[in-house]
């Protein structure tokens, strides 16, 4: 087992509290990330569809979606700071070490996110200016989507690497860490969840806009079709979640597994069923969701996500537990040695004279 000692400063709060906060705030962050990524992809889709079918309705839909990206991306970034702070303080040695091991890719997150944000701004605020250059305009948002599709790989690789210190000495940069088991399965699971969450978000957004008379549509059929397409995204996303979720579980590294994960997994599945039934019904009967169905879908899915968040945390804890115990012991030994060294060798004054 690899040996390392921790920083000699105490944790600023009880460990369980920091970890509970990490799980909660990460869920809030990831929901906004999913809405940001999903909205960017679906904005590309609708604008492209509008251009291809020469249908201005889809162009208007794309514009409304584009406006939401500005808000969601700001919330995604700001809500990401909390979990980042918490993971830094709770898993200092593990998180920083894995970050360094894929350092070149890790720091790329910053310029890539800045570039994606500036492109989404240009895309939204220069919408009219690009009226006669529609292909270029779609390309812009497609490029932003591409940014958002690449960035998750950096995060997934880092968090995956952090969980398994025993493989650290086999890593030689980002790409050697990228192909460790279950990163791609988790990536596609993330994309599926993105589709689910964004479909639900757009359902809510356009309902709100119609109620407030902020979105005008040519006829009822177009609107019904729009909501049906949102529901289709949700259903496809949910099937993706089931498929890739299963792959994630079956390819999960044994270090993180134990029997306590089973009730959590059952919790995820149980609360996944009502939204699944609602969305399957809506899609099969080509009907929009009632207010009640929509609310039960959101609440139930949110509880399922909480279970998934706790499950993921439990897996991480299992994987890191032996290393944390060992590190604690090593830290005590190291501090004792420092104390003895002061006594045995004396403390020299290194101040500049």
């Amino acid at each position, binding site marked *: 087992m*690899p040996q390392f000692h*921790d920083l000699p400063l105490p944790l600023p709060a009880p460990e369980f509290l920091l970890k509970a906060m990490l799980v909660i705030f990460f869920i809030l962050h990831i929901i906004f990330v999913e809405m940001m990524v999903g909205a960017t992809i679906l904005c590309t889709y609708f604008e492209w569809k509008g251009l291809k079918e020469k249908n201005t309705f889809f162009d208007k839909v794309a514009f409304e979606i584009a406006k939401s990206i500005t808000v969601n991306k700001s919330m995604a970034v700001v809500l990401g700071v909390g979990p*980042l702070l918490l993971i830094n303080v709770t898993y200092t040695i593990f998180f920083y070490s894995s970050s360094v*091991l894929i350092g070149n890719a890790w720091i790329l997150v910053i310029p890539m996110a800045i570039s994606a944000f500036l492109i989404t701004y240009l895309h939204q605020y220069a919408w009219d200016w690009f009226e006669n250059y529609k292909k270029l305009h779609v390309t812009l948002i497609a490029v932003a989507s591409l940014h958002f599709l690449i960035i998750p790989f950096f995060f997934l690789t880092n968090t995956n690497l952090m969980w398994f210190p025993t493989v650290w000495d086999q890593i030689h940069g980002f790409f050697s860490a990228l192909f460790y088991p279950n990163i791609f399965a988790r990536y596609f699971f993330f994309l599926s969840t993105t589709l689910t969450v964004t479909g639900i978000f757009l359902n809510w957004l356009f309902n709100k806009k119609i109620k407030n008379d902020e979105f005008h549509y040519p006829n009822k059929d177009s609107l019904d079709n729009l909501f049906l397409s949102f529901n289709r995204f949700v259903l496809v996303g949910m099937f993706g979640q089931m498929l890739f979720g299963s792959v994630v579980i079956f390819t999960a590294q044994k270090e993180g597994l134990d029997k306590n994960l089973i009730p959590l997994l059952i919790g995820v599945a149980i609360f996944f069923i009502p939204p699944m039934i609602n969305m399957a019904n809506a899609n099969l009967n080509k009907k929009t969701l009632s207010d009640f169905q929509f609310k039960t879908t959101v609440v139930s899915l949110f509880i399922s996500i909480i279970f998934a968040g706790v499950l993921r945390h439990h897996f991480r804890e299992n994987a890191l537990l032996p290393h944390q115990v060992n590190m604690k012991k090593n830290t005590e030994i190291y501090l004792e040695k420092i104390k003895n060294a002061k006594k045995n060798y004396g403390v020299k004054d*290194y101040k500049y004279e």
Partner: protein
Amino acid sequence: MDFPVFHLDFLGNRLLIAIIAITHVIMSHTMAVGGIPLITFLEWKSYKTKDPRWSKLAYKILFVFFLFTTSLGAMTGVGIWFSTSLVNPTAIGSLIRVFFWAWFVEWGAFVTEVVLILCYYLTWKKWDNDKDKLKHIKLGLYLSIASWITMVLIVAILAYMMDVGSWKGTHSFWHAVFNPVYLPQLAFRTTWGMFLAGGAALTVMAFLKDLDGEFYKMGRKSIAKWMLCWLPFVFLASCWYWSVVPILMRENVPAALTTQVFQHWYQGVLTYTFLGVGIIVLIAFMILNPKTTKYINRPAMIIPYAIGLVLIGQFERVREFIRKPYAIANYLYANTIREEDLPLLTNEGILKYANFARVRKITNENRIEAGREVFKIACTRCHTVSNIGINSIQDRLYSMFQDQPRDGEFKDNIEHYILNIHQARPYMPPFPGNKEEARVLAEYLAHLHKNREELLGDQVLGTKLIDN
């Protein structure tokens, strides 16, 4: 030494942080902390004078500030964490342990700030009647306060890095927050932010085409007044800040303002710095004066901000440099070694205790590799190896020894120099290894003279774990 070593052998690790952090400071100070109060002031002026042109001007400036702060500003803020966690994880990790709750509250303020700026920007045109306008101005005021609170909390940490005050004895959170440098640095950053927000607004105005001529002059006059109103406070806060900078750090200022090589240009650079401030003030006065205002054309309106950006970069560089040899004053050296670890490491060796060293034991066969490893752990936070790298060790050696042969005598001299480096250069930390490690480091440095090589970080090479 607690983490694998991230290293950029051309750019240098310090410059990576500097690029990200200075961009963030520019955005946060001039467009958020100073910028939002200025916009709120212009909006209030519109409300008071019933002249919608002020509101139009304020909105146009806000649009630019909004775009930059919520993209470049927000992401470089996160980028500071990313880059510092790569370059000096021990420092940022220790700071987070000490200041966790301050950072947590700051996060709350940041969330509030982002929510408020989204509301402030997105409701500008919707809340257009008299009653709503007043509500909107209040929103601007709350946003200004939230922006400032984020600075209030972060500056405590920056100031603590310069002087930990009585924290070292007590390890108390409040002693860490209320360190001797805190309030003066806060005053300095606040007033500079307010002052240079005017420069940022003038720059935006330089690109605005659709404001009528008479109002354009009124607008920039008002912004120039704003800048000049803050000027005395900038002066007072700067003096206050300078008065609390520890004496030892002040001695580093000549090298900080220039570089080691150009230290003798210190007075000149200092003069140019004051001249820069003087030009900003002169332009503001010229805008105010009806006789001279015509000389300040659109390109000239960009000059105050351009100078301001250079000054901000310079201030940040000076603050970072004078703190040396420490990353956290009297606690952690810039090379990630804790002061209290020195008795152990200088006697028993750093290779033995570094969590991720590739070489544990020095043998006759691995002396160069061991020297490289010691260099990587002890020197790469500031120095590069490549002869085209920034702050390259090869350049430093060449400037000291030129083509002198790298023989046994050279190695003896270097070894002696390494062991006493903290006395030769006040900004250098003491060598954190034992004598044998100093010797292999000297041999590695001699080896570099004949073998021009680059040093790759663990993000490329990978790492080695101690196993038992």
